[in-house]
């Protein structure tokens, strides 16, 4: 193992990537390797190649697109393995584009994978599987997800965010069970419970879009969970978890009192202009 790889694996991104590979191996045994591998490759390639293209046209030094690989894997884990590969790749592309389209000078505003997955519902009619949460395996494997998630959450110091989110989403669901017991019962069972865990531990905690201060973590966790539960109850269907995390991201952006920068959008549009000019020459 090279030194640079060892150093990378010690970073939070490297740790998360290693854990994702492990989760993928487990999930693929249930979903079928022949379906899972090309599906995941489509998502990762879509996201990472787009990231590289934007970096290239932005005159940045080409570097290993670790964030895009992680975003692509999240896209792959949420979309079902039977999703057409073209659509999976397109959602991966959207993840990288969204990261640059909605960005400040320092951060991207929304979780790239969550934003792309939400947009893909009306755009491509995609469904969601959340198979990365291992819902297709027996319930003890949920403990694997929890252990892997807790390891990452501890490293990036986001326990208040995750625990407040989970506490409120399960607490509110239990209370609403008095009114709508069928919907509430799903929230505590496969595959909804695993999806909630996966989102809380691997998507809500994305460092650029998650707060650092504990007070903010608690507030954003509560807010995101409340939005998710309300979205579920008003019938917004499969998007409720994504709406929760994106609402939390938006609230944090407002909290930071930072307006959207045009620089990210300009980079994307400039990239399209360059590609268009080159195509015109040929």
């Amino acid at each position, binding site marked *: 193992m090279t030194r640079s790889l060892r150093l990378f694996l010690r970073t939070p991104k490297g740790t998360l990537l290693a854990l994702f590979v492990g989760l993928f191996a487990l999930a693929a045994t249930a979903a079928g390797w022949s379906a899972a591998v090309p599906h995941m490759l489509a998502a990762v390639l879509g996201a990472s190649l787009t990231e590289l293209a934007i970096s290239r046209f932005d005159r940045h030094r080409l570097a290993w697109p670790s964030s895009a690989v992680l975003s692509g894997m999240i896209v792959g884990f949420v979309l079902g393995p039977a999703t057409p590969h073209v659509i999976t790749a397109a959602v991966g592309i959207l993840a990288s584009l969204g990261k640059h389209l909605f960005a400040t000078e320092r951060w991207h505003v929304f979780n790239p994978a969550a934003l792309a997955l939400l947009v893909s519902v009306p755009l491509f009619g995609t469904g*969601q599987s959340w198979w990365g949460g291992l819902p297709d395996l027996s319930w003890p494997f949920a403990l694997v997800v929890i252990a892997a998630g807790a390891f990452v959450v501890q490293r990036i110091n986001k326990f208040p965010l995750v625990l407040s989110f989970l506490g409120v989403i399960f607490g509110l669901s239990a209370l609403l069970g008095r009114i709508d017991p069928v919907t509430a019962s799903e929230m505590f069972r496969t*595959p909804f419970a695993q999806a909630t865990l996966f989102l809380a531990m691997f998507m809500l905690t994305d460092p650029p879009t998650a707060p650092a201060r504990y007070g903010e973590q608690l507030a954003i966790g509560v807010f995101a969970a409340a939005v998710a539960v309300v979205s579920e109850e008003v019938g917004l269907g*499969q998007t409720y978890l994504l709406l929760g995390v994106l609402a939390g991201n938006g609230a944090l952006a407002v909290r930071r009192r930072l307006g959207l920068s045009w620089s990210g959008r300009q980079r994307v549009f400039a990239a399209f202009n360059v590609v268009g000019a080159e195509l015109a020459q040929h």
Partner: protein
Amino acid sequence: MAKRMPGRLVALSASAVATIYVAGFLSTQPAAQTVAAEAASSPTSVVTAPTASSTSAPTSTSTSASSTSTYADGAYSATGTSQLGNVTVSVTISNDEISNVQITKVTTKFPLSRIASLPAAVVQSQSASVNVISGATYSSQAFKQAVQQALTQAQAARSAQQ
């Protein structure tokens, strides 16, 4: 960067969340059992779909049929609904048999991977009578409803030929 949350506080908070989860799980158990019982007792060969909310349309005309056949050959598309979303399927009939079933669109919450095994089950059983998948009750029911709608289309096309 904030200080690290003390390990004991993490453990205490996680225990509280786990308690909330278990309380919610147990309090909703009767509803979950009711849903499971309804799924188990519902007829699987005849899917009683709320027709007002179902849509179906043949995507190709029939090509051949013998005098004793049930279905007209062709591809038929139909959509089944559930309270959590829709499932659209394409059912291909060849030589009076269900030769292929494809899920073409899903808008339920947790759709495709949970019910990915159902198309093959329909081809194997040659009917919409397949088992509801635990944990994907609504998606399964919407799928079965869609298949039944498509088969009804194929039967109607066959009747029209005779």
